[in-house]
């Protein structure tokens, strides 16, 4: 049988970084082909190549056995390749009918009655009920996905890629979506199903491929795979040879105590203690809701139950201002959006959250003190820059991350919450950031570190809290944690002890 779509030795480089190396994959009509891998394994890049958004640096894409050049998502759609994502891509101002037929290319005049009928048929074909005249802005995520699937069907889709489609859905909605995926495959569509939920993979898929570090590791019939074998292949690398564990500096003095913290529909029943001198790492996959727990502690997400004791007193979590005044700092994972003012000098960024410290009696900014602070952080954190006046945006990722840490450390926090501290920075800079956070806790603070990078979690965490879909699976002491045990908990293959 000829594969509907095949990747032949595809590599993709972004600058010096190789996102995909020699990736080969064949998709056959009528199969649900699951693809699993850790965060950052190269799944998104692979989808973007299949849907024409990226062009391979080398290698090629074949459709029906002949080489195809997909110049963009329009070209891909015309060849029958479409993708739907965890966050659906709909047009909030248009109604369901218009959303479904937005990619249509034939005909000049819109025949509204015929479009509505066709929209209703498509929605019915995937077994949903949906008012085709409603504007998309009011639809639930599951309904929006249904609209996207209907849009793909309207264009005679032959390869439908579903990227983490159930990550934000309720259990019932997710099982509906899996039913639709199976039905499409039975109709002859090749369904690519990307999921972190292994039980879903075993329920739905015909074949499963593991990718890791941008490389294809294996493709098996689902009957030949076990959850354990998949996890082993996803984690792959030998444990413990990546970063050395920084020695624990934990004391017995409790700084933060969280009991049964819940936020409706987001996460539930999170409980842990954090001691001075300790680094607690939160591990889990995308959709585990770790960032939401951090946002709740920082006063930016409303909680519905539970108590938080901080420095021996109940912590009010009503605004980020309150958190900052209490000495809680939150270093966001999104440097560009929430962390740094890229066009402004390093010095301005470092003093941004603590400007009141640099006011002269007249209320003017004391530039000399500001410069002194910036230089002391440049020295201490080894920020590689000729001076502190250049725009942060011109620094490398690792140095930007250090500026961001400097900004928050300058606040003298007691509790430092860091979300993905080393995403997108090189290995050397990673080790430096690890050492910085360790030095901070050794001086009497405590840190809650969210990381999706398992070697990093094992290198930093004195204890490791594993979350999965808004629930706390376990807290593992460092000595008994391994990449396998964390991954098993995070994917739900091992239940909370």
């Amino acid at each position: 049988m000829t594969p509907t779509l095949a990747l032949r030795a595809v590599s993709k480089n972004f600058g010096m970084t190789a996102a995909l190396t020699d990736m080969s994959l064949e998709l056959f009509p009528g199969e649900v082909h699951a693809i699993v891998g850790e965060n950052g394994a190269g799944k998104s890049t692979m989808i973007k190549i299949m849907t024409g958004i990226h062009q391979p640096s080398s290698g090629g894409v074949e459709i029906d056995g002949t080489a195809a050049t997909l110049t963009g998502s329009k070209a891909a759609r015309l060849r029958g390749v479409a993708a739907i994502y965890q966050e659906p891509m709909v047009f909030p101002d248009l109604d369901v009918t218009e959303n479904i037929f937005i990619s249509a290319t034939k005909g000049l005049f819109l025949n509204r009655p015929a479009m509505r009928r066709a929209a209703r048929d498509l929605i019915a074909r995937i077994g949903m009920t949906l008012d085709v005249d409603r504007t998309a802005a009011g639809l639930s995520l599951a309904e929006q996905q249904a609209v996207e699937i209907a849009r793909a069907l309207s264009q005679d889709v032959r390869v439908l890629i579903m990227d983490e489609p159930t990550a934000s859905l309720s259990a019932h909605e997710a099982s509906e979506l899996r039913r639709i995926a199976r039905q499409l495959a039975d109709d002859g569509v090749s369904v690519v199903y990307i999921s972190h939920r292994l039980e879903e993979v075993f329920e739905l898929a015909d074949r499963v491929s593991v990718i890791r570090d941008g490389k294809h590791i294996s493709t098996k019939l689902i009957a030949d795979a076990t959850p354990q074998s998949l996890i082993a292949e996803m984690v792959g690398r030998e444990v413990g040879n990546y970063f050395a564990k920084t020695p624990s500096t934990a004391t017995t003095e409790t700084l933060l105590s969280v009991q049964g913290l819940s936020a409706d529909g987001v996460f539930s029943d999170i409980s842990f203690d954090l001691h001075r001198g300790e680094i607690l790492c939160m591990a889990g996959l995308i959709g585990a809701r770790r960032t939401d727990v951090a946002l709740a502690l920082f006063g930016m997400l409303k909680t519905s139950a539970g108590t938080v004791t901080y420095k021996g007193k109940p912590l009010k979590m009503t605004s980020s201002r309150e958190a900052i005044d209490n000495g809680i700092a939150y270093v966001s994972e999104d440097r560009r959006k929430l962390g740094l003012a890229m066009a402004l000098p390093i010095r301005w960024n470092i003093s941004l959250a603590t400007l009141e410290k640099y006011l002269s009696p007249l209320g003017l900014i004391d530039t000399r003190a500001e410069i002194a602070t910036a230089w002391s952080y440049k020295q201490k954190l080894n920020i590689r820059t000729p001076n502190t006046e250049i725009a942060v945006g011109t620094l490398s990722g690792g140095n930007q991350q250090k500026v961001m840490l400097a900004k928050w450390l300058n606040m003298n926090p007691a509790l430092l919450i860091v979300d993905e501290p080393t995403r997108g920075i090189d290995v050397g800079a990673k080790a430096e950031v690890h050492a910085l956070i360790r030095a901070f806790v050794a001086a009497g603070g405590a840190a809650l570190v969210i990381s999706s990078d398992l070697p990093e979690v094992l290198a930093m965490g004195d204890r490791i809290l594993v979350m999965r879909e808004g629930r706390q699976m376990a807290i593992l002491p460092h000595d008994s944690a391994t990449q396998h045990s964390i991954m098993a908990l995070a994917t739900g293959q091992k239940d909370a002890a």
Partner: protein
Amino acid sequence: MALLTRLSPAALRLLALLAVLALVLIFFSTQIEGYLNGRLFNRISSSVAIMALIATGQTLVILTRNIDLSVGSVVGFSAFATGSLISNHPDLNPLILLLYAAAVGTGFGMLNGVLVAYARIPSIIVTLASMALFRSALVEYSNAKSITSESLPAWLTDFPNMPVFSLGAMEFRAGFTASLVVVLIVHFALTRLRPARQFFAVGSNPEAAEMAGIDAHRTIFAAFALSGLMAGLAGFMFLARFGNITVVAGLGFELKSVASSVVGGVNIFGGSGSVIGAFLGAILVDLLETSLVRWAVVSEFWREAVLGALILLAVTTDTLFSRRLAALGARKSKESAK
């Protein structure tokens, strides 16, 4: 309430706008003697004939999350260029003259479009600059001379006031009727042609538009070209109505056209709105302006402030109203899902 939720939000907006128009008319008819008569209709309709065209083009641009601040200068240039062409060639075929005005406007629009869509410079910067550039081009081109109505053929200056048909005391003249026809054609095209849907898609969710295989660059380029076309046609109307064209022709039209669109319910962040709304918006803005002039209570120094406040009120009401409506719709669908 049941009726209100059954109507589409777009239809509701238009109804609300008509209601506001009616309220304004009723209010001023109690304040100004002999207010509601044929003359009021004539005055408003001949001025809206020009603004409606510009606001229609502006709406197309705003739908794609952009703005065109150069339309006032394009109107001026097109009016002047068309006027000088007909003064030099008085026997020119009217259709050719109209096409000339359209071509001048489209040319300027395409220039804006290339810079915004393909060079990816923010539209507010491109059109702020081109507003000044096109105006200076007009000053240079005019060589400090003006077009006077004596130099224009009679058919041209008579055209806007030619009666077409009457509805009671309301006399529909050719200028207004022509402009109304253009608005209706664009409205039909925008709601019924497949490619036109892309204006809404690009403004509603640019990322999703790309994923859906829509060429956003081409769509934005088309919006600016059409906005230029509309401004060119408006220049023709401006010439026909006023006859005397100086280098300040069309000054300030850009802001008035944005006001008309926004008052008419076109979302300034793109994605939703209609040219009928912008048309009604243009009427409302003009009606308020004209009526305030005749309303003795407001001194002329405060007129602009009152107009500004009323526009703000209209837009605020519209925003709150549509937000409530969206919340209501979401609640309803949640209930029906249970």
